[in-house]
């Protein structure tokens, strides 16, 4: 499991309709913004963690979701400790972590087909304004699909950089990554046409 991509399963959490899960996610976001006692976000965080247990998702995956944000959490924590005290730190950090984990839970337990079906339904009214809901839904699916591809490209570029002794040069990393990402986008576009996107 990585990058909050779908982890198949047959638990209650997996079987809940995608629309309901997205609605609950929105409700969690609103509730966290409205709660006014410092300890209340901890209760929401506990509920989200209970849902992870119900979905039988491994702890390693949960930590993988939080790891990239650790420095942001530390910076936010220091700022609030300095400005408002420890209760504000608990309030803000518990809210942030609960929201990240709740969003991750939806991604981990809902297939892209289910998510795009909901998205298509939500975007249907925009059809009258000339927006193509199918294209928007495909755009989201392609974005999710492209994350691991770009990460793998970045790893390959970094390995090549190390093999050539280029150290930590940002330019030697960014230029080939950009070129390879554009090539991938070009090939993906060609594949989409070949697979009938224009039908």
């Amino acid at each position, binding site marked *: 499991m990585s990058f909050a*991509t*779908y982890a*198949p399963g047959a638990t209650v959490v997996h079987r809940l309709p995608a629309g309901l899960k997205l609605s609950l996610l929105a409700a969690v976001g609103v509730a966290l913004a409205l709660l006014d006692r410092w300890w209340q976000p901890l209760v929401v965080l506990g509920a989200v963690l209970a849902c992870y247990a119900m979905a039988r998702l491994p702890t390693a995956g949960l930590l993988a979701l939080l790891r990239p944000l650790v420095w942001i959490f530390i910076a936010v924590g220091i700022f609030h400790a300095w400005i408002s005290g420890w209760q504000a730190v608990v309030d803000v950090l518990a809210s942030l972590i609960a929201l990240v984990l709740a969003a991750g839970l939806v991604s981990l337990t809902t*297939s*892209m*087909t289910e998510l795009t079906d909901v998205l298509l339904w939500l975007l249907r009214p925009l059809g009258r304004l000339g927006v193509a809901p199918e294209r928007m839904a*495909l755009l989201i*699916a*392609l974005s*999710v*699909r492209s994350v*691991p*591809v770009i990460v*793998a490209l970045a790893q390959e570029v970094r390995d090549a950089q190390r093999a050539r002794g280029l150290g930590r040069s940002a330019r030697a990393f960014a230029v080939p990554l950009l070129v390879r990402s554009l090539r*991938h986008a070009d*090939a*993906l576009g*060609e*594949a*989409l*046409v*070949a*697979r*009938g*996107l*224009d*039908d």
Partner: protein
Amino acid sequence: MPLIDVVAVSHSYLSGSLRRQVLTDVSVELSEHRIGVIGANGSGKSTFARLLNGLVLPDSGQVRVAGHDTRRDGRAVRRLVGFCFTDPDAQIVMPTVREDIGFGLGRRGLAPADIAARVERALTDFGLADQADHPAHLLSGGQKQLLALAAVLVTEPALLIMDEPTTLLDLRNAAAVGRIVAELPQQLILVTHHLELLEGFDRVLVFDEGRLVCDDVPAAAGAHYQERVR
């Protein structure tokens, strides 16, 4: 078998400020079951393959597949012609195996039950049933190429074009793809550097510097190609 008719086709690409000729006055009629296409890198064979389903439109000349002109009737051509690329990562567009196989079907207006049945059959036929709901990016290289092939064949094209499908695979996976390819009922056009994959093919075309330089049975075409690259 759909008849492919390529008439006096030339094509060039703009490379920087220079125009590079990649195909020059190619004419050929293809109706055999299995046709191989070989040639050195840059010989024009991949461009030739892309002409046959309208991914590339010729600068001059005409390409017709079962009577449909690729320039005027690209959609009809692409419904007849499936295309399998060298790099499966560029061809897999959906996050999970099952979703990717169903992608092309969903766009053809088939009933959901029909789509589900076809996807299940493809998953079983290509040995991907155990990975059906897994992220596609976690598959091995060989499994990814099988997924790419399954996603094309599930739409039941009359003609399949494969552009160097075994180039990125190890020997075992290349052999597995070769076995599947050998049993396909569809008309097949296979672009490859692996001459052993063309054993038993009806016809092999050899390209060199944008020109069709040999059109013969596999043994003779293979010998001609090896003579040219020596």
